[in-house]
């Protein structure tokens, strides 16, 4: 076998410390290398031209390149090899700059260490195999789960780029949490108005035909992998034909039954048929079968249908659940977050005292389409003379959630601003552990709250230092210093936490959860919109507490990844560094399936052997080391190669 060694001097970087001539002398007696060539700068244009030509002339079977770190130029040299017609995997790089020349004082020792390292590479490279990048056909279509700000922006961005998007939303409305908010920090913009143009684009815009919106729908099954997912979506019946309904609302009035409205946190009632709130999109009501007497009692009431100006058939009493199957290349998770359960804090009285509210409930009280039509009133219908905001409920708390939820201070200051203008005399109390309001716009609301002469700020250390009790005329809050203060209304700002669906979806898609239960990103700084599973992306508050800006940016980031990774008409290239099972050696013990972090291994029941999916495999080699039968091979990192390298380093 003809093996060539290329020794790069890297100017003086390597040559100053390591004498290539001596290395050559040291290696020659072994007879393993066919030639040894030195080059001043192998990565320079001249160097690459030299290497390409030399590979064409010498036609070696394998080469060893002793130069800088492979992290620097392995890809460069592999490209040159490809241009010279040589399979790029038939090379082993030896890092003699970072790991020898720069760190070894004694030139003799540096020569020896270099020679040993090249010898190890020579023994290893003999065993290298030609590997090819495989190509795979992919579906450019995308599934987006969740139609909050993150999912909407993602769907729109992709649709604008010509992608088919299936947008799956669990509730009957789109817009996520912010459609429920009257105004938004930091600029006090109206929530529904801000979202309206985006939602209109989704529903009727220029690229709407690329978006298939499925409301009242959830993902139930996933098979396949990056580029080729087969998904099943279950859509609950709406009992209203969304395409025929004009959203006039004539059907609500005659409906004889009503129940509490979950979209107003059960603070008011809605009819069995109705909108979640006025202005909800898509502009069509839904019928709640847990209220409608046709379903609860088997009645033949058809008051709503009779009132429909569009005639019969718009309200579809026999509407059925549907299972919708789609093929997509990638999936974006944008399912948002929820709030920590405040009834866990017995001392705060939530759930017992009617005027202790969560921030979400307070948002609805502030909203003009909410239960009080935007009037801030207590449970007895009076304007509160004092409102206390308890920040950090469950956040910054090792017994609950150790992290800062990031958004709570800001919406508390938003409330401060809204109260100041709605109820000019109302006293406001902020009880907080820490105040957090970074950002170029965000400080303004904080500043305004500080400047509000009706507002008082009191810091507390632990939530147990506070106690809210009911009084005849409101609530009494015991403060950390032992004093008490009265508040007609108490608003809790709870920790932002993962939704109940996160775990289920994580398990379905094999996307890992972080230690707090949010979907775990591939990398916290560099890749927060990617999960650790190829082809599954993360956007918005399902990945970590987020404000709308972060949520929408991540939605677009995820779209960006998809547009660059899954290009219409372009096949995806598979890095050949994956594992594969020798079926004849496999005993079927399934240890590999248990250790694989990517669920890349499945069991072929017919032949009782494990099979690795090369697309899903990331090439870590954990299964290879775990297999008791030695039945798994890691391409380019086979046992034989590594053992030969060890031998070469010691002999």
């Amino acid at each position, binding site marked *: 076998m003809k093996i060539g060694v290329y020794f790069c001097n890297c100017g003086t970087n390597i040559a100053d410390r390591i004498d290539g001539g001596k290395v050559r002398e040291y290696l020659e007696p072994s007879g393993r290398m066919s030639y040894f060539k030195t080059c001043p700068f192998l990565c320079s244009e001249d160097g690459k031209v030299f290497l390409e030509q030399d590979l064409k002339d010498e036609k070696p079977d394998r080469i060893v390149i002793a130069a800088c770190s492979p992290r620097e130029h392995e890809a460069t040299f592999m490209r040159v090899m490809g241009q010279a017609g040589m399979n790029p995997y038939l090379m082993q790089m030896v890092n003699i700059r970072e790991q020898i020349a720069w*760190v070894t004082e004694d030139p003799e020792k540096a020569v020896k260490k270099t020679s040993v390292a090249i010898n190890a590479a020579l023994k290893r490279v003999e065993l290298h195999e030609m590997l090819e990048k495989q190509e795979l056909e992919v579906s450019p279509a995308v599934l987006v789960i969740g139609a909050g700000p993150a999912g909407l922006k993602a769907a729109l961005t992709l649709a604008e780029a010509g992608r088919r998007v299936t947008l799956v939303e669990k509730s009957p409305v789109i817009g996520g949490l912010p459609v429920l908010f009257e105004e938004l920090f930091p600029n006090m913009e109206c929530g529904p108005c801000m979202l309206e143009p985006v939602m209109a684009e989704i529903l009727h815009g220029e690229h709407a035909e690329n978006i298939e919106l499925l409301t009242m729908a959830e993902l139930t099954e996933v098979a396949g992998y990056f580029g080729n997912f087969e998904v099943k979506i279950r859509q609950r019946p709406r009992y209203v034909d969304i395409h025929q309904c004009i959203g006039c609302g004539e059907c609500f009035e005659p409906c004889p039954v009503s129940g509490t409205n979950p979209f107003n946190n059960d603070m008011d009632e809605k009819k069995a048929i109705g909108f979640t709130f006025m202005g909800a999109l898509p502009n069509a009501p839904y019928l709640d079968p847990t209220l409608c007497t046709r379903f609860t009692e088997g009645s033949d009431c058809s008051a709503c249908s009779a009132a429909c100006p569009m005639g019969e058939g718009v309200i579809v009493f026999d509407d059925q659940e549907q299972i919708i199957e789609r093929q997509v290349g990638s999936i974006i998770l944008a399912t948002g977050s929820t709030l920590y359960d405040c009834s866990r804090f017995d001392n705060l009285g939530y759930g017992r005292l009617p005027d202790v509210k969560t921030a979400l409930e307070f948002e609805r009280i502030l909203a003009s389409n909410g239960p009080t039509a935007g009037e801030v009133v207590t449970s007895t219908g009076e304007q509160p003379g004092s409102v206390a905001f308890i920040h950090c409920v469950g956040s910054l708390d090792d017994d609950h959630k150790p992290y800062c939820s990031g958004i709570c201070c800001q919406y508390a200051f938003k409330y401060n601003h809204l109260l100041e203008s709605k109820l000019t005399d109302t006293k406001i109390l902020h009880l907080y552990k820490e105040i957090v309001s970074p950002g170029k716009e965000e400080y303004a609301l904080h500043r305004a709250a500080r400047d509000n002469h009706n507002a008082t700020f009191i810091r507390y250390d632990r939530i147990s230092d506070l106690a809210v009790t009911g009084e005849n005329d409101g609530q009494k809050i015991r403060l950390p210093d032992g004093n008490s203060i009265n508040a007609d209304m108490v608003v809790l700002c709870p920790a932002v936490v993962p939704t109940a669906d996160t775990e289920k979806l994580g398990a379905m898609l094999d996307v890992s959860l972080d230690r707090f239960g949010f979907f775990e990103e591939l990398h916290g700084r560099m890749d927060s919109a990617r999960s650790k599973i190829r082809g599954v992306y993360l956007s918005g508050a399902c990945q970590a507490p987020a404000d709308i800006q972060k949520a929408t940016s991540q939605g677009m980031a995820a779209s960006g990844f998809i547009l660059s990774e899954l290009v219409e008409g372009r096949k995806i290239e598979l890095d050949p560094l994956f594992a594969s099972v020798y079926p004849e050696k496999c005993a079927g013990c399934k240890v590999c399936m248990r250790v694989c972090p990517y669920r890349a291994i499945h069991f072929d029941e017919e032949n009782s052997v494990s099979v690795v999916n090369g697309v899903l495999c990331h090439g870590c080699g954990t299964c290879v080391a775990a297999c008791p039968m030695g039945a798994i091979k890691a391409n380019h990192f086979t046992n034989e190669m590594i053992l030969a390298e060890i031998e070469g380093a010691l002999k």
Partner: protein
Amino acid sequence: MSATCLLNNTPDADIVAEFEPRIIGFLCNWCSYAGADKAGSSQTPYPPNVSIIKVMCTGRIDPQFVMKAFNEGADGVIVLACHPGDCHYKEGNLRAAQRHAMLIRVLEQMGIEGKRCRFDYVSAGEGEKYVQVITEMVATVKQLGKLSLID
């Protein structure tokens, strides 16, 4: 793997001073190998006794690699992984740590001191830690002396 046991390995002080141990270092591609490169960029010298074998992840390290190293004449083996939680492949480093704990017991039964096989974590930014860990390891193995195995 052949049954091996240790011969007397406490050489006198003179030999210790001259003895240059041979150590195999298994480094993962993502953190510890990058950490070694970082040490290089800062050009802090450290003893040249460790031959680096790169694997994609420490989870790839088969105990037979360590045995092979000792059988071929290594005086020590060092495995450097990404810190817990930082493994590029989620949890390969934790598997490696588990395997290492088991392997140490086997080595000790064979008469190879546990200290000859070290497991540690080095991140891509921890060039200084890399230098420190390697320097310590070389000193430890020098102290222990040459490893002699008989079949």
